[in-house]
Structures are given as C-alpha cells and as structure tokens.
C-alpha cells in the first residue's frame, strides 16, 4: 500500500498542472497546441481520478479514470484533430470582447471568486483541505472554460472551451458531489456527439458553395429545385 499522504502530494502537483493547462488554453493562439493542452488536461484528470481510487479504493473512480482516458484522451482529441485537418486553419487570431492577456488576468479573478464563493458554501462542512482545493479548481476550470468559449470566435476553439468546462465539472464532481457514474457516462456520450456534430458542421461550412451543392445532390436533397 502506498502512503496516502504521498499520493495527496502528487495530486496537489497534478492540480498545479491542471491550472497551468487551463491558462495555456486561454492564452494560446495555435489550434493544435490548444488541442494538445486539452488532451494533457484530460490525462491529468484521469490520473487524479486514478490516484483518488488508490486512496479511497472505490471501483467507480477507477472506472471513471478508464472512461476519461478512453473518451477524452483518445477519442475526442482524435475527432477534433480530424476537424483541424479538414478546415485547414492553424491559428485562432480573432477574439470577441477579450484578448488572451486580459483573459488571463480575469481568470485570476475567477479563481479568487470561486474560492470565496465555495468557502462560504462549504462553511461548517467536514471537507478536507485537499477536497476543498479540488472543488475550487474544478469550479474555476469551469469558469475558465466559459471564458474561452465567449472570448473566441472560431468554432473549434469554442468546442475546446466547452470540453475543458466539462473537465471542470468532472473535477468538481470527483471532489465534492460524488456524481453518479451513469451521469458521467451520459455527459461523455453528449460530448462525443457534440464533437461529431462540430466535425460535420465545420467540414461542411468550410467547403465552397459548389462542393456543398454537390454534397446535397449526392444526398438527393433539393434535386428538382434547380430550374435548369
């Protein structure tokens, strides 16, 4: 048996890396590095979940780690990288409302906000420091994902923001609420569907009008409409 205190130490180090990855997703202008960062972030979450399993010994946590590994580290990044190949856009340089620099500064504020908020919510509850810290990071990860979603203009980055927001929910669930396993599975299914839809939309929207028409013809939509 490994010493739980040592495991908790490692979890704290992983927390730090999760926050770094969140900061990188906010500030990067390169789509492929944003995707890599998301993959690493998901992997870190899987690792946290596995370490919690080693401490607690609940089989559910192990399952969750495997599920996260399979879906968020392998499947979803694969789909998103397919999108990135198809749309031939390497960088996301357009921002709405906030440039990355102010976003980073704002996210410090968001972390502070979630800390003050959660410290009031959990006042008087017997929650260990590690778990409280995990909850704070989970909530701030969610808020930072939201920040990515509204400050970016490209669909792919928005989707990545949404995905990292879900990572935050998972983190929060791991440390505080003990989300039922079935809900976690459903959320992951939803995510896969979302990414698939984004693939279809992004590939469709990026092709030229002629190609779009060609595709519609092949699918026998609008066949009789054209007058010629």
């Amino acid at each position, binding site marked *: 048996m490994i010493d739980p205190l040592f495991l908790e*130490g490692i979890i*704290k*180090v992983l*927390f*730090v*890396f999760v*926050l*770094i990855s969140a*900061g990188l997703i906010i*500030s990067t202008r390169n789509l492929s590095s944003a995707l890599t960062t998301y993959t690493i972030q998901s992997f870190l979450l899987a690792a946290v979940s596995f370490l919690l399993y080693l401490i607690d010994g609940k089989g559910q946590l192990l399952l969750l780690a495997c599920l996260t590994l399979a879906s968020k580290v392998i499947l979803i990044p694969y789909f998103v990288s397919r999108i990135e190949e198809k749309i031939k856009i390497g960088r996301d340089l357009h921002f709405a409302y906030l*440039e*990355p*620099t102010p976003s*980073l*500064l704002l*996210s*410090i504020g968001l*972390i*502070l906000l979630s*800390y003050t908020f959660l410290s009031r919510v959990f006042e008087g509850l017997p929650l260990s*420091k*590690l778990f*409280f*810290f995990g909850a*704070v990071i989970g909530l701030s990860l969610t808020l930072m994902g939201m920040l990515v979603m509204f400050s970016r203009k490209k669909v792919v980055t928005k989707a990545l923001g949404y995905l990292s927001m879900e990572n935050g929910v998972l983190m929060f669930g791991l440390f505080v609420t003990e989300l039922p396993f079935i809900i976690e599975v459903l959320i992951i299914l939803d995510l896969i569907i979302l990414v698939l839809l984004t693939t279809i939309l992004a590939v469709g929207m990026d092709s030229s009008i002629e190609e779009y028409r060609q595709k519609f013809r092949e699918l026998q939509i609008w066949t009789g409409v054209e007058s010629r």
Partner: protein
Amino acid sequence: MNTSFLLFALLNPLFALLAAPLYMALIRKVKAYAQGRRGPSLFQVYYDLRKLLQKEAVYSPTSSWIMRFTPYLNLSTLLVCSLFVPLVFVPEPAGGIGNIIVFLYLLALERFFTALGGLDAGSAFGGMGSSRSMSLAAVIEPTMVVAFAALAFVLKSLNLHQMFALNAGTILPISPTLVLVSISLFIILIVETGRLPVDNPATHLELTMINEAMILEQTGTNLALLELAHALKQFLLMGILINTILPVGLSTEIDAGKIAVSAFLFLLKAGLLAIIIGLFESALAKMRLFRLPAFYVMAFFFSALTILIEVFA
C-alpha cells in the same frame, strides 16, 4: 560576520565569475547544433574576453563619464548580487546580504545604468535600445516583484539564503507551487537576459535589438566587462531557478567534499538548464514588441496563482 560567510564571500563570486561565460557559450553551441552548424568552441567566449580585455577603449566625443563608469558599475553590482545567490553552499546569514528586495534593486540599478550608457554615446541605436529596454522594464518589473514575492511566500523568508537553506537537501521541491514559480522565473530569466522571443542576442539588426543596441558603442575593456556582467546576470538568475526547482545536492555546511560535490552538481544542472534555454530559443521566433506584455502576463499569472494556491491549500 562569521567565517562561514567569509568563505562564502570568497568562493561564491569567484565560482560565478569563472563559470558564467561557459553557459553563454553552451547556449550558443546548442543553438548552433539546432541549426545544423558546429558552432564555436566552448572556450571561445573566454578567448574573446581575453582579447577584448587587452584592447583599448574608444569613446565617442559626445560621451561623458557615464559611459566610462557604467561597465565597472555593472560588473561590481553583479558581483555583489552574486553574494545573494548561494551556488556552492548556503552560509549562515550575515547582515542584510541575501535580502530579495535589495537583490531586485541591484538588478534595477544595473539595468538603469546600462540604459544610461546606451544614451550617453549619442548614437541613434543606443537611444532606441535604451528606450525599448526601459519600456519593457516598466512592464516586467511588477511581474518580477510578484514572482519573487511568491517565492518568498512559499519559502517563508525574504532572504534568499534562508529560502534556499530551507529548500536545500530535498530531491523534490518542498511545495508543488514551486513548479509554478519556476515557470515565472524561467520567463524572467529569458526576459532579463534578452533572449528570444523577447530580444535576439545574436543579431545587430536595427529592428530587433534591445540589449545589444545599448552596448553597441562600447569597446575594448569596457565591452569585456559588460559582457562578463551580462553572463554573470544570466548565471545568477539560472542559479535562483535551479535552487528553486532542483535543489538536490546544495550543501548547507562547510565541508570541502560537500562543497565540491555541490559545485559540481550545480555545473551539471546549469548545463541542463542551458540546453533547455538553447532549445527553447531555437524553437521560438521573436515576438512582436507590442505582444511581449502577453508573454509577461503568463509569468504574472503563474506567480499570482502561486500566492493564491499557497493561501488556499
């Protein structure tokens, strides 16, 4: 003033002064390999310094005492700084030596006089370099203060000696947040030593110069002193970063064997860091001047995060 500190005051600056140029050369070598060249020998820096030291200094007719004074001031400032960063062993505390605020102000003094020296020669290049350097300094200095404040907060002291004494002897850093501070310290190291993506040390092009522009008019002995000071500054900042993230082997007692081991290990670790810096520089292009604050904000973000995490957890 105790014997431990006297020994330290002899050994540490000497070690830093001798080893510092080597790492300038090592970074150059790594960059050369990354570009598919062989690059100059590691000792070329020492030959260059010897050559420059033997040459006489030439001054522009418009220059004043500042230009003559700056190289000596810079080198002596950094020699004093080298008393603040324990490289071979951590001595018992003495006086105000090691205070982080004094350290930051000494660095600021060096920066200020380099900028003045750039202006003093009366060439357009120097003035441009000084202007750029000062505007960047105005942005990086708050970040530096926050980063060092985070370091002080984590290691629970304002004295660099006490901080590293606390950290010494552990294989892993004592707190996970030190990883975060190290990222900030790395960015500060890159900015302060004028490396890519902030400034390109290998070019004399008008558009990209910051640091080189300020010492463009310096010649002979003065140039040698300035380059030595620059190398020393890089070595000391590297020392702070290494003692923060990878303190293993740093000796806290006076023992010839332990000091030798700690100095040797430090040389190895600094070599590793120099290789990382070289690769980092090779992988990046120079950033646009107005995008640089975004780079600094990363450092600020990580330092502020460190303080937040230390308060929470």
